[in-house]
């Protein structure tokens, strides 16, 4: 490549920074959704770059279902809040907690609806955010391939796949009426491999759960669930066993499958990813409900 050429990662980085700055400039009250996963880590890293030497001019928001892995919460507190010094908001659907919602009793779909989708809407309403960054990528799932970078939501946070604004060049339309909002996806054009390569190149810290270690798990119909705390009800005769596993995607521990692995470094993780035969969303229990389920969720306001 000649001297004035950017590598694909540097080009993606520049495009994402452009998107993040555009939002900071055009919206009154933006927020960055922070799921604590690797994509969030990359997104936060890009936000730091976009406004260096200043801090990003918006807070992070974590929707905490109370069933996140403990190491995720630790990472949020120690890294994002303490080391980076970022403003991290945490929101939980307290009413639902009071009503006794649990992934074990109500099933993954209903639980996700209430603790993630509903909680997100509540938080966005509470703080009156007019733009929310999400770390979703178009390569993750079929219905996301057509998602815009600036995705319009009506005042009920609904997404209308038939009525999306055309999006040309890098000219993003940020105009909305009061109560409406835009979801912004700065990582739209990144693939899972790009994200990992970038984490590697830029030495971006990630939650240790991504690396293989001995962890207590139970095997449920082929899905390895980590026993992260005593709330996980064990079936009769079920006994947690220590296995060397890691997570390819992070979420609520009872709904996230581990994979057996010996990858303890980033290159090993990438090596494993490149030789594996399944896509990462497979480990998320919610996706297997029905074909096009992500699309249904998005119409309801899920990210």
């Amino acid at each position, binding site marked *: 490549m000649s001297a004035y050429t950017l590598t*694909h990662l540097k080009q993606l980085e520049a495009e994402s920074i452009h998107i993040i700055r555009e939002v900071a400039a055009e919206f009154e009250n933006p927020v960055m959704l922070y799921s604590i996963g690797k994509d969030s880590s990359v997104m936060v890293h890009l936000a730091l770059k976009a406004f260096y030497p200043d801090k990003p001019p918006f807070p992070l928001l974590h929707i905490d279902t109370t069933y996140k892995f403990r190491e995720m919460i630790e990472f949020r507190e120690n890294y994002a809040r303490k080391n980076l010094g970022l403003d991290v908001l945490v929101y939980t659907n307290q009413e639902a907690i009071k009503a006794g919602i649990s992934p074990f009793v109500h099933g993954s779909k209903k639980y996700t609806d209430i603790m993630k989708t509903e909680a997100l809407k509540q938080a966005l309403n509470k703080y009156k955010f007019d733009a929310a960054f999400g770390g979703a990528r178009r390569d993750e799932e079929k219905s996301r391939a057509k998602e815009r970078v600036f995705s319009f939501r009506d005042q009920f946070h609904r997404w209308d796949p038939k009525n999306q604004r055309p999006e040309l060049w890098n000219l993003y339309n940020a105009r909305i009426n009061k109560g409406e909002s835009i979801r912004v996806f700065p990582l739209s054009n990144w693939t899972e491999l790009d994200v990992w390569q970038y984490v590697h190149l830029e030495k971006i810290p990630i939650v240790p759960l991504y690396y293989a270690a001995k962890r207590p798990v139970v095997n449920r119909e082929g899905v390895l669930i980590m026993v992260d705390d005593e709330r996980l009800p064990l079936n009769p005769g079920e006994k947690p066993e220590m296995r060397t596993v890691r997570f390819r995607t992070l979420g609520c521990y009872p709904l996230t499958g581990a994979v057996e692995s010996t990858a303890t470094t980033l290159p090993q993780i990438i*090596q494993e990813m490149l030789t594996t035969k399944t*896509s990462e969303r497979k480990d998320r229990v919610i996706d297997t409900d029905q074909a096009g389920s992500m699309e249904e969720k998005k119409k309801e306001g899920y990210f």
Partner: protein
Amino acid sequence: MSHQSELIATDIDEYLAQHERKELLRFLTCGSVDDGKSTLIGRLFYDTKMIAIDTLEALMKDSVTHGTTGGEFDPALYTDGLKAEREQGITIDVAYRYFSTAKRKFIIADTPGHEQYTRNMATGASTCDLAIILVDARNGVVEQTKRHSFIVSLLGIKHVVVAVNKMDLMGYREDVFENIKRDYADFVARLDISDLHFIPISALKGENVVEKSSKMPWYRGESLMYLLENVYIASDRNLNDFRFPVQYVNRPHLDFRGFCGTIASGIVRVGDEITVFPSRKSSRVKRIVTMDGDLDEGFAPQAVTLTLEHEIDISRGDMICRPGNQPSFDRKFEAMVVWMSENQMVPGKEYLIKHTTKTVSGAVSTLRYRIDVNTLHRQDAPTLRLNEIGRCEFLLNEPIAFDPYRRNRATGAFIIIDRLSNNTVAAGMILDRSSSGGEHWDDQPSEELHRQVSHVTPDERKSRFGQKPATVLLTGLTGAGKTTIAYALERRLFDAGRAATVLDGQNMRLGISRDLGFTAEERSENLRRSAEVAKLMNDAGLICLAAFVAPEESVRQRVRDVIGTERFLVVHLSAPVEVCRQRDTDGHYAQADSGQLTNFPGVSAPYDVPAKPDLILPTHQWTVEQCVDAVMQLLQDRGLIT
């Protein structure tokens, strides 16, 4: 996702080192489901091992319920996205797909072929470097093919691959392919597409898609994948005109005032003088700030933060450029517009125009004509409706800094937003407007004229001459050695069996340009005529060595536009004026000093040093032989000769 590389298993660190430094190529696929577009994309993914097993399993399941292949694996289903669309059996929006090989990362903008979706195609095309236009070998060039080609050319895509698909259904016959090629070449000559390729393929069977086909031995070109991996795109970006639309002003504390933005075009260095629009205030670049450390120079499309030597008032929407290379700055301009809304355009109505980082209100003052995308005929029209394209005059409420889209995508593009609905209703591309007397760069040829097309194709000429045609501009001061090197180069090429010819500034003036003098306008006109001649020579398959002073960067840029970026090289002969003076045997410098020759570059007129030449020859230090070697090497590096 599974990649094929032994390195993954044997040496992951080495693999990463290789794969973290790829180039990015965005391309568009145009065609309908019937042309086999989805099949082609499915095939590219399948053959490059980009479909994950669980995705494949889901596809197999889908193939039974939705497929058109009787339950067999239907690669087309891989690219269909939304549920409602799948049920209708059509793709109705732009979908983006990703895959990579060892050489490049690819982003595919997958757009539909149906008539009502011009807007989706324009959307997809806006960010692409290359377009694949699918033609069904059974049907040949149809109306839709022409429409796609027109939109591709309108949106400024420089590289086009016409993939003649379903060759398997036509017995892989050469005459079928050749006929389609000829029909297409006839049509496309009216459009502005500079780099055109034809490939006969079968997406279903995988012939000429990733690997070269053994079924079509008569086809001597490369496979589609080879082209995607190797087409030269680095010169597509404008690195000549520095433009920096200010996106965000960063003020963490009183001692730091940074202007954040994406470099739209050109190169910026610390210490560069700059001018800001609209204030026209000047300063110098103090720092180019990034979190990874300050840079000495920045270039498009990097996202950086600039700080300046002086405290001048700059806000979002302003444009920073160089004092010697400024954009147009006006409330009025003309543009081609693609209308994208169900609500038709209303001339005179106030819309919002978002251009770079600036949003201003303004109106279409005149709709000059509408273009029938199928015939390219211009029609008188009162309005533009959804999916219609027209040429409009705009009048904004305040001036903006812009360039013609053809020359600068980032500063020539805009979107139109409806103030009430907030919807994006149109996309626009600003046109070059004629400015001056004496020059004819922007004169529009009469509409009655039709370009006649040779039946000998560029590919045939390429094989005959064993070279790709190009124009090498040898620019430099009088006495720098342009003519000497041009003729020495011609000799070397000729002796190597190549077909080259010299176009010399003085010789031009003996003939075609004998009516012209030496004012800046007349020099410019001389160069315009020379550019047209060089273009004819290139069209004839020749390498043209053009020896001209060509002192103005803006004029050199226009020459590039005439000849085509990918076949135009700038070689700067950098001997300083003192050396040139000593070498001058004709007494030109003495005459310039005494005022007998006016507007003499280097004495009484400026010589703009090329901002980004393809090669610099220090002719005051090197021998002619060394200079010729260097140009030969350049020609080889660019794949023009072997």
